[in-house]
C-alpha cells in the first residue's frame, strides 16, 4: 500500500519505542488486560478478547482506514524487498529435514495466517505453518523472516507464537518447538515435542506463563494427548501432563474399556489455554476420544466416559498436576472436541460473586464453571440446530442419543463435523455481560462406513455429507441464564468463522464471510448494527487491537496478507 520512496528512508531498527534493548517482552504485561500491546495468543491470559482501548469507537469507526497492508510469501524466498522495493530482509532457514517436503503455503506461495499476531514494542510477530516474520507495526516493513524446512505432518494451521523476554516460541507441524531471537529471527534451539511416527502434528500457539512455555500438540491417529511445559531458556522439559490414563492405577482408567483403549484415546491439546494468576491454574480444553467415530471398543458402557477427553482441565502451572476437570461430552462419537477457548470472567452468578470460566463448546452447548474448583454452574444449548443429545445429566453433561451416532443407514445430525463453533476465538464483553461466539448451524448426514470397530482408527469409519444449514451467526449469550440475548445472522452464504474482538468503544469486529471485516456497533441486549467494513477477501484470523505511537490500530489477516487499520 505505502510502497513508496519514503519506505526506503525508514531504517529498519528505528522503532517507535526506541532502543533495541526495549524490544523484549516485560512479563508483567501478560497478567494485565490487553491494551497497548498484544503479547500473548488472546491478547491477555483471560481469552476475553476485549480491549479497553477507546480511541476507535462506535461514533468514529466509519473513519477507520488502511494504515498499511503487507503481503507475505512463505518458504525460502519469503522475505521482503528487492531492487525496486524496500530494503531486503533476510530469510533465516531452520529445520531438520534434509529434503523438505513441498507444501504450498509452507514452502512457497501465500501462507495461511490464521493465528494470532503478537505486538510487542511496535514489532509484530506473525506466524504460519513453518514460517515466522517480524514486521514493523508502523508501516508493515518485514524485518526478518524465518522458514523451517519441514519433514511433513498435517499443515492445517498455526495459531501463533509466544514470547518471553527477547525470545519467541513457535511450534512446527513436524513436532518441534523452535525458539527464535526476536531481534534477528535467528534460531536459538529447537526441541522435538512429539513423536512424528505416531502422526502427531503441532499447530497451537505456545503460552508463556512465568518460567514455563506451555505447549500442546495434535494428532489424528489413536495417540494420547498431552500438555508439556518447557523451560523458556534451555528448552528442557519441566513436566508432561497426559490427558488420558497411561498406566495402571491412573485416575480415570475406570472410564475406559481397557488400558490399551485409554492409551490410544486421544484428548489432544491443540488450542491455547487461559491462565488465572491468582490460582496458578492453566485452563485448557481437550480433544475428542479416538477412534473418533465409534465407542464400541473404548466405551461400550455408560461408565465409560473416556476421561479426560472433551473436557475443560485446570492444571497447576508449576507442577503440571491436575486441579480439576469438567467433561462436557462424555464418550463423544462425532469428533466434537472441547478445545474451544475457555474464557475467564469475574462476575456475579446467581447473586454470588464468582471467578468463572466459560466455554461455548463445539457440540453446541455453553458451559459455565467455577474456575477455582471446577464446580459446574450452568449448561445451556446455544445452537438451536443441535439435535444429537437426549438430555443433560445431573452434572450438567450432555447425554448422547445413540440414534444420532454414525449409522450405516445415515443419521441427520447437527452440528456438522466442523461443530457449532471451532477454533475461532469468542469474545466476552464485561460492559454488556455477554459472551459472543460465532455459531454455525449446519446439518450433515453421518454414515458409518465399517461395521468392524477394529477397523476404525483415528478419524476412520465415517463419511459425512453436509446437507443444509440454518445459517451462521454471532450469538450473544447471557452467562447468567445461558440464554441468547440476540443472534445476528449473516446474510447469504456468509458467516466468517475466524473469531471475534470487542472493545470498550462499543465495537465488535467480525468476518462477514463474504470478504469483509465488519465493525458492529454493540447495543447491549439489542442486536448489533454494522457500522464499517473493509472488503479485503477471505479473512483468516480474529482481529486484534493495540496502540503504537499513541494510535489505536486494528489488525487482521486475509489471503496471506496482514492489514492494519487506524483512524486517519
Amino acid at each position: 500500500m505505502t510502497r513508496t520512496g519514503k519506505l526506503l528512508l525508514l531504517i529498519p531498527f528505528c522503532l517507535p519505542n526506541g532502543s533495541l534493548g526495549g524490544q523484549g517482552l516485560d512479563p508483567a504485561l501478560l497478567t494485565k488486560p490487553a491494551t497497548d500491546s498484544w503479547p500473548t495468543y488472546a491478547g491477555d491470559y483471560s481469552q476475553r478478547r476485549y480491549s479497553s482501548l477507546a480511541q476507535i469507537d462506535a461514533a468514529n469507526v466509519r473513519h477507520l482506514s488502511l494504515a498499511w497492508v503487507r503481503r507475505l510469501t512463505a518458504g525460502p524466498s519469503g522475505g521482503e524487498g528487492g531492487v525496486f522495493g524496500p530494503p531486503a530482509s533476510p530469510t533465516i532457514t531452520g529445520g531438520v529435514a534434509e529434503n523438505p517436503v513441498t507444501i504450498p503455503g509452507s514452502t512457497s506461495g501465500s501462507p495461511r495466517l490464521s493465528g494470532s499476531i503478537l505486538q510487542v514494542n511496535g514489532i509484530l510477530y506473525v506466524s504460519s505453518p513453518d514460517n515466522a516474520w517480524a514486521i514493523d507495526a508502523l508501516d508493515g516493513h518485514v524485518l526478518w523472516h524465518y522458514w523451517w524446512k519441514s519433514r511433513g505432518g498435517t499443515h492445517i494451521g498455526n495459531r501463533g507464537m509466544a514470547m518471553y523476554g527477547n525470545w519467541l516460541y513457535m511450534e512446527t507441524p513436524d513436532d518441534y518447538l523452535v525458539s527464535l531471537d526476536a531481534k534477528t529471527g535467528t534460531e536459538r534451539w529447537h526441541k522435538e515435542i512429539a513423536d512424528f511416527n505416531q502422526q502427531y502434528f503441532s499447530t497451537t500457539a505456545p503460552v508463556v506463563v512465568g518460567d514455563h512455555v506451555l505447549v500442546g500438540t495434535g494428532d489424528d491417529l489413536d495417540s494420547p494427548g498431552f500438555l508439556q511445559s518447557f523451560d523458556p531458556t534451555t528448552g528442557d522439559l519441566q513436566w508432561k501432563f497426559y490427558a488420558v490414563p497411561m498406566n495402571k492405577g491412573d485416575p480415570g482408567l475406570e472410564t475406559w474399556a481397557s488400558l490399551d483403549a485409554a492409551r490410544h484415546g486421544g484428548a489432544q491439546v491443540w488450542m491455547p489455554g487461559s491462565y488465572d494468576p491468582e490460582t496458578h491454574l492453566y485452563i485448557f480444553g481437550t480433544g475428542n476420544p479416538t477412534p473418533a467415530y465409534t465407542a464400541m471398543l473404548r466405551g461400550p458402557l455408560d461408565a465409560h466416559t473416556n476421561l479426560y477427553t472433551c473436557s475443560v482441565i485446570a492444571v497447576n502451572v508449576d507442577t503440571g498436576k491436575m486441579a480439576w476437570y469438567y467433561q462436557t461430552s462424555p464418550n463423544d462419537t462425532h469428533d466434537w472436541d472441547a478445545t474451544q477457548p475457555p474464557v475467564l470472567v469475574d462476575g456475579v452468578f446467581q447473586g454470588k460473586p464468582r471467578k468463572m470460566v466459560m466455554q461455548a463448546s463445539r457440540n453446541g452447548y455453553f458451559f459455565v464453571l467455577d474456575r477455582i474448583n471446577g464446580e459446574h454452574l450452568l449448561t445451556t444449548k446455544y445452537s438451536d440446530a443441535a439435535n444429537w443429545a437426549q438430555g443433560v445429566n445431573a452434572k450438567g453433561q450432555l447425554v448422547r442419543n445413540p440414534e444420532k451416532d454414525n449409522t450405516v443407514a445415515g443419521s441427520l445430525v447437527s452440528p456438522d463435523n466442523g461443530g457449532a463453533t471451532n477454533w475461532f476465538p469468542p469474545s466476552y464483553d464485561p460492559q454488556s455481560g455477554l459472551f459472543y461466539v460465532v455459531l454455525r448451524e449446519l446439518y450433515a448426514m453421518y454414515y458409518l462406513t465399517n461395521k468392524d470397530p477394529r477397523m476404525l482408527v483415528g478419524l476412520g469409519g465415517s463419511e459425512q455429507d453436509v446437507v443444509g444449514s440454518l445459517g451462521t451467526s454471532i450469538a450473544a449469550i447471557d452467562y447468567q441464564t445461558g440464554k441468547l440475548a440476540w443472534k445476528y445472522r449473516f446474510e447469504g452464504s456468509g458467516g466468517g468463522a475466524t473469531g471475534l474482538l470487542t472493545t470498550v468503544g462499543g465495537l465488535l469486529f467480525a468476518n462477514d464471510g463474504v470478504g469483509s471485516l465488519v465493525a458492529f456497533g454493540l447495543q447491549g441486549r439489542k442486536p448489533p448494527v454494522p457500522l464499517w467494513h473493509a472488503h479485503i477477501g477471505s479473512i483468516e484470523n480474529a482481529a486484534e487491537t493495540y496502540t503504537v505511537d499513541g494510535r489505536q490500530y486494528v489488525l487482521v489477516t486475509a489471503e496471506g496478507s496482514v492489514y492494519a487499520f487506524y483512524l486517519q
Partner: protein
Amino acid sequence: MHARRRFPFVATAIIAFATSMCAPQSPAQVPPRTPQATQATARGNRPPDYPVRPPAPPEQVAHGEQLFRGNCSFCHGSDARGGETGPNLVRAQVVLTDQHGELITPIVQNGIPARGMPKFALSVADIAAIAAWLHSQPLSDRGAPSNLDILVGNAKQGEAYFNGAGRCTQCHSVTGDLAGIGGKYEPKTIQNLIVSGGAGIRLGRQPAGAARPKAPPPTVAVTLPSGQIVKGDLDHISAFVVALREADGTYRSFARHDSVPKVVVTNPLQWHIDMLPKWRDADIHDLTAYLSMLK
C-alpha cells in the same frame, strides 16, 4: 469464497443462501477432510502428510504374514487389529515407531509377562518379516470406500410419506423431475438430495455415477428508491452490498444503507432448510428406499 488452494475440500460454501463452512481446522480439530483416495486430486501433486514407508519385498511380507498367523493372531487377531486378549498392533505406538523390527524384536523375544504376553523364540529375520507385514497394513480405513448397504427403509412407507405427510408433491413428481431417479444415483446420493434439495456437499468419498443435479440458485428482488425493481439470481449479499445477475447475464450490484434499497431474497430450497430441524431419520430412510426404486 473460502475455497482456498490448500483446503479446497473443506471450505466451500454449501447451501447457497444458507451457510458457510468454518475455515479449515484440523480433523480432530476440524471438518472432516477428504480421504486419501480423493485427497490426491484435491491436493494436486502434494505428497502425503506423513512419510510413506517404502514397501518391503513381497516375499518378506508374505513370510511375515505366515509367521504372524501362526504365532501372533491367536491373541492379536488374524489381521493384527486386536483380538480377545491382545491389543491392536497396527496402531500400536511401538509398531508406528519401529522401522525394521528393531523395537518389536525385544518384545517378541522377551515377552511382556506383566501383560500376559509370552516370549517367542523367533529369529531377528523372522521378526523383521512380521514387522514388514505389520507395516504393510493400512493404518486407518479413513476414506476407504464403503460397501455397506444403506437401504434399510420401507419403500411403501416412503411412498406414503412422499404423497402425504412429507408434502413432497408440492414441488416434485415421480413422473416428472424425479422420474427414473433411482437409476441415476446411488442410494446415498438420493438420500442426501432428499434432505439438501441438491445443495449439499460431500466431504468424504465421492460416489460413482452421475453428477448431482445443480440446485436452483436463490433469487433476489431489489427495489430501488425510484420504485424500480431489479431481479435476478443472487450473486452475493452482505450488510453493505447486494449483487445479482439478471436474466440476460448482466451483473449488477447495489450499495445497501440500512434498509435502502429494499432487498428480498427467495431461496427455492427454503422448504428443505425449514425441514432440517423436523426430519425423522426413519422418514428419510423410507423416502430413500422409495425413490431408489424408481428406475
